[in-house]
């Protein structure tokens, strides 16, 4: 690009002072070559402008959620878990939170978490660990047959090479996470099989109880309730 073209670029950018700009205005009336350059510049700018496209719905929420998780991951080694709960309420409240949200970040966060726990199970446990404590503990196993209410939208993540869809349900004041995967969730150390061949198992992870049922798909239920109550909760959920 020669000096003439640089001056033209500066003119088009509005960089020239008033006198110089007036000279260019007059020059463009006379010079067909420069006038063509101006028209091409304008056409190119308009063409490029066609490529603007708004960010997809839910991208901002996905990004914010990933950052929240990263913050949790950074804080978790130093703080009690209850102090690093995610603010899930805003996530549940936002209508833009896209179905199928991909939070592959969890894969990165999980390894430092629960020693010896399979990555996919640890990812679900970490996610479930962000839930608020139950509003009340009594009467979960028996009595009232209130229907579960979906909280927010499903979240998808990949952990340990396992693709997982996580849904959250609220049932009588308790939030329960149900993770579904096409691959079986591996039994963590200390888990107890409740049926032959590892078709179902229960385990504890901190304050969480985990209950896994393997069928056509593998479903891992997690909630901050005693293990004895989890099966009763799971029975009321629309598992596959």
């Amino acid at each position, binding site marked *: 690009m020669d000096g003439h073209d640089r001056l033209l670029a*500066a003119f088009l*950018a509005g960089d020239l002072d008033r006198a110089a700009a007036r000279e260019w205005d007059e020059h463009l009336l006379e010079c067909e070559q420069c006038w063509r350059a101006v028209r091409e510049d*304008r*056409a190119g*700018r308009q063409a*490029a402008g066609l490529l603007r*496209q708004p960010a997809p719905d839910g991208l901002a929420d996905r990004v914010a959620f*990933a*950052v929240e998780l990263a913050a949790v991951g950074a804080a978790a080694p130093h703080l009690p878990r209850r102090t690093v709960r995610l603010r899930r309420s805003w996530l549940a409240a936002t209508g833009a939170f896209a179905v199928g949200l991909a939070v592959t970040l969890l894969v990165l966060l999980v390894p430092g978490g629960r020693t010896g726990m399979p990555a996919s199970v640890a990812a679900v446990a970490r996610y479930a660990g962000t839930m608020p404590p139950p509003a009340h503990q009594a009467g979960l196993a028996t009595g009232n047959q209130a229907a579960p209410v979906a909280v927010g939208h499903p979240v998808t993540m990949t952990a340990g090479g396992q693709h997982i869809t996580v849904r959250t349900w609220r049932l009588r004041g308790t939030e329960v996470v149900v993770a579904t995967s096409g691959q079986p969730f591996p039994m963590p150390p200390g888990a107890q099989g409740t049926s032959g061949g590892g078709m179902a198992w229960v385990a504890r992870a901190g304050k969480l109880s985990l209950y896994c049922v393997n069928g056509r798909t593998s479903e891992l239920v997690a909630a901050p309730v005693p293990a004895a109550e989890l099966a009763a909760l799971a029975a009321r959920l629309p598992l596959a």
Partner: protein
Amino acid sequence: MGGDHRAFLDATMPYVDVVYQVARHAAGAGQDPEDLVQETYLRAFAAFGSYRGENTRAWLAAICLNTARSEARRRRRRPWEIPAQALLDALPMDRADEARDVADVVIAGLDARAVARYLAELPEPQRLSIVLMDVAGYTAREAAEVLGCPRGTVLARVHRGRRKLAQLLAAAGVSNGRP
């Protein structure tokens, strides 16, 4: 770091849309622009504690480009390769109604997919300058900060790139979405 994430989100979330504009054209083959935006924000968050810059959106764009570069290296592919089909599929089929005031220029009626195709043919410095300024809406000064070159250089690259893009489109006879 955990305590900073609110401040980070407050400072950076207004720019998700412009970062997405950059990511769509910086993502390499097989790389999802939305993943690139997310990775950009995670890297930015990791560095936020030491960030002392004044222009957050320029900082984010620079991280986005570097992240795309890293990913391209990781995949051992040519950096800045436009994700041909993925990008074209993501573009609107016909936005000729937005191409106003083109009667007096070379091109009448434009197909965004054709624009993307020919934009991809421009040399990288021109292409990135156009993406930053004309697509994502960065100022020349911001683009210069992102690309690490003088503002005048960015203006020159944008000017050359726009002209070349217009010439390519005109030569191809792009009109009303039908090249």
